[in-house]
């Protein structure tokens, strides 16, 4: 490393925020306080309050001091400097690390500030190079004074300025989406609601156990079943839990998405800012964008909602959920999602994700129906078998659940078939699939780095084929599922001219069935 330890010329080394000690101490104080209360409760029950305090308080203080010391140590060992070519970072609590990231390799600079950091006027800066998919390509600086963090981001992303930016009339079109409180209606329709409802149920029992009251809770709930018919009480219980889950989902949504804005900055970088308590600021250099995905989860779709995810290479990865850092627009009305998708892609006309799609052959519907019914009947077969062997109650459960599940399975299968479609819209390959999570992806054709064509023996019989466009962005490949064999191959051939052509045989005049690039 030839450039290390050269500080004579170039800017001086900068350090983290002096308040790292406070931040570290607060981080450990919060969980330590929780643990202290629980342990203290048990000790106080077992002996006296004095003994409990004598045990718990010193441990609490030690934990907080250790947290503060780690923050202080982080402050002591970490320094960073941006010179003309590189971002230099010296850090590491256990292993001393010296990093020098080439500035043109830096693809994303994300700022997060949780409530603790916000009170202290600081933020966490996460710099992603997109070199590796894992955490290796990401450098985290914590905590950085808010003003320095903003300046650092501006400096590091300055190179992203497009060379043709001056000629581009759209270069500075600013706001792409602004937060609208009415979007909140889509929030409880997420699959998070039942998940959190279940978590609330489990969590209540767990907390009760910590305080030795689990049995009392179970008995109380059990006694409710005496008040009314069991089915009614069960239903009320489920509805109650779902409402708790819904409120929790709403709270999470508000915390994540409050004051969401999506901007295109003058240099072409897409910039997402959001969050009520923890504020997040995510930048995505436009040259990393390979397309967009309009995602309609089942609940949101029934209410006419959709969200927009970026299909991009080298997004910074860290503790934060990957899906969320890819999301450009939270679930919002479908028309808005389509418009934002078009704006993000700088498509002046109709959004590619709303382009009319070529449907897939009915054989694909047959496959979906067989999968759906097969899954339901498989489960029912187990119930019937157990019922025949053990108790007839299971037989009743089997036919009752069959009455409900078979129509649901058929509806989902038909809906999944309706979702299928593909086309080429200008510079984009567009593919749609899914029923529980319907996703329409518009992938830049120049972002396709290869093809994987799959066909099982059953697909071969039905004349279907799954064509996957491999790409550096997102999960690595986007699939066109169960297309007619000739359609799918013609699509791949037309999307990247010349790549698949040498390996195709058959009707050469078949090309017109896929729209040629505009």
């Amino acid at each position, binding site marked *: 490393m030839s450039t290390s330890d050269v500080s004579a010329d170039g800017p001086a080394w900068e350090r983290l925020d002096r308040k790292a000690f406070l931040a570290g101490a607060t981080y450990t104080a919060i969980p330590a306080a929780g643990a202290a209360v629980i342990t203290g409760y048990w000790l106080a029950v077992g002996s006296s309050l004095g003994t409990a305090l004598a045990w718990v308080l010193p441990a609490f203080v030690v934990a907080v001091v250790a947290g503060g010391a780690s923050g202080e140590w982080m402050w002591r060992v970490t320094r960073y400097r941006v010179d003309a070519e590189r971002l230099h970072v010296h850090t590491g609590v256990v292993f001393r690390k010296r990093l020098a990231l080439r500035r043109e390799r830096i693809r994303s600079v994300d700022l997060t500030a949780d409530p603790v950091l916000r009170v202290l006027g600081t933020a966490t800066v996460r710099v992603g190079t997109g070199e590796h998919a894992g955490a290796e390509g990401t450098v985290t600086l914590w905590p950085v004074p808010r003003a320095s963090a903003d300046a650092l981001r501006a400096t590091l992303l300055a190179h992203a300025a497009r060379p043709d930016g001056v000629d581009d009339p759209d270069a500075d079109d600013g706001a792409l989406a602004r937060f609208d409180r009415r979007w909140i209606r889509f929030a409880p329709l997420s699959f998070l609601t039942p998940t959190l409802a279940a978590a609330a149920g489990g969590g209540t029992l767990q907390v009760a156990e910590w305080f030795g009251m689990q049995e009392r809770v179970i008995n109380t709930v059990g006694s409710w079943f005496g008040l009314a018919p069991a089915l009614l009480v069960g239903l009320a219980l489920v509805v109650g839990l779902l409402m708790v889950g819904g409120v929790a989902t709403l709270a999470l949504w508000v915390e994540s998405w409050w004051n969401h804005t999506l901007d295109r900055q003058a240099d072409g970088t897409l910039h997402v800012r959001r969050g009520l308590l923890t504020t997040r600021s995510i930048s995505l250099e436009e040259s990393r964008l390979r397309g967009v995905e309009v995602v309609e989860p089942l609940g949101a779709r029934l209410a006419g909602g959709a969200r927009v995810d970026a299909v991009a*290479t080298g997004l910074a990865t860290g503790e934060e959920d990957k899906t969320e850092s890819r999301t450009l627009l939270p679930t919002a009305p479908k028309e808005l999602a389509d418009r934002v998708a078009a704006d993000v892609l700088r498509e002046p006309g109709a959004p590619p994700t709303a382009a009319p799609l070529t449907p897939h052959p009915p054989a694909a519907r047959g496959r979906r129906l067989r999968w759906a019914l097969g899954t339901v009947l498989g489960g029912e077969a187990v119930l019937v078998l157990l019922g025949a062997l053990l108790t007839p109650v299971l037989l009743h459960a089997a036919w009752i659940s069959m009455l409900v599940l078979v129509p649901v399975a058929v509806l989902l299968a038909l809906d999944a078939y309706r979702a299928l479609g593909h086309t080429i819209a200008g510079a984009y390959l567009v593919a749609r699939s899914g029923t529980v999570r319907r996703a329409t992806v518009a992938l830049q054709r120049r972002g396709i780095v290869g093809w994987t*064509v799959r*066909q099982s023996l059953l697909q071969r019989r039905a004349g279907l084929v799954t064509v996957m466009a*491999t*790409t*550096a962005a997102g999960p690595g490949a986007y699939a066109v599922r169960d297309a007619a064999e000739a359609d799918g*191959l013609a699509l791949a051939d037309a999307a990247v001219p010349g*790549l698949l052509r*040498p*390996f195709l045989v058959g009707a050469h005049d078949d090309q017109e069935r896929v729209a040629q690039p505009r």
Partner: protein
Amino acid sequence: MGVLSHGPKRVAARLATWDHGAVTAPTIDDSPSPPLRLRPPRHAVDPRAVGWWSLQLVLLAAVPVVILGVLGLLIAPARLWLFAPAGILAALGALAAVALPRLWFRHHRWEVTDEAVYTRTGWFFQEWRVAPLSRIQTVDTVRGPLEQRFGLATLTVTTASAKGAVKIEGLDAETAADLAADLTLATQATPEDAT
């Protein structure tokens, strides 16, 4: 391109030799002939791959069979219940070791042109993979202990996609090394950012 301008042509010429190499007869393709379909790649894998795959399957089946057999010898009362599954597994393993590699040999094919690497694998789940030379990031050959005994190698070509790697198993070791060298040259001759 500048300095490299003479590069791609020469490499292309070298790669083109893979086009005209020993062309084995195309395999039987019993699918109904649709209007447009992918043709089988030109080259079959090395015939020694059949032995290699067989040995892998034999070893795979041998582990549970040996464990069950030893247990059967040691635990006299349960002998029947241990020997019976061992026998069934051994029979299935033997059948697989005889039939599957021959089936795979007919279906695993590969081809390298001066534009792309093209492979076909699998029988029940057939899979064709195409990676353009211009998007290749790494080329490497791997030889496991069994492969070394059979004089075989596996060539792996990766692109920027996490799911785009193209793997050619059961190549003659020398062919694989030559191919890797040529592909590496061709890849260096393409200066663009392969993402």
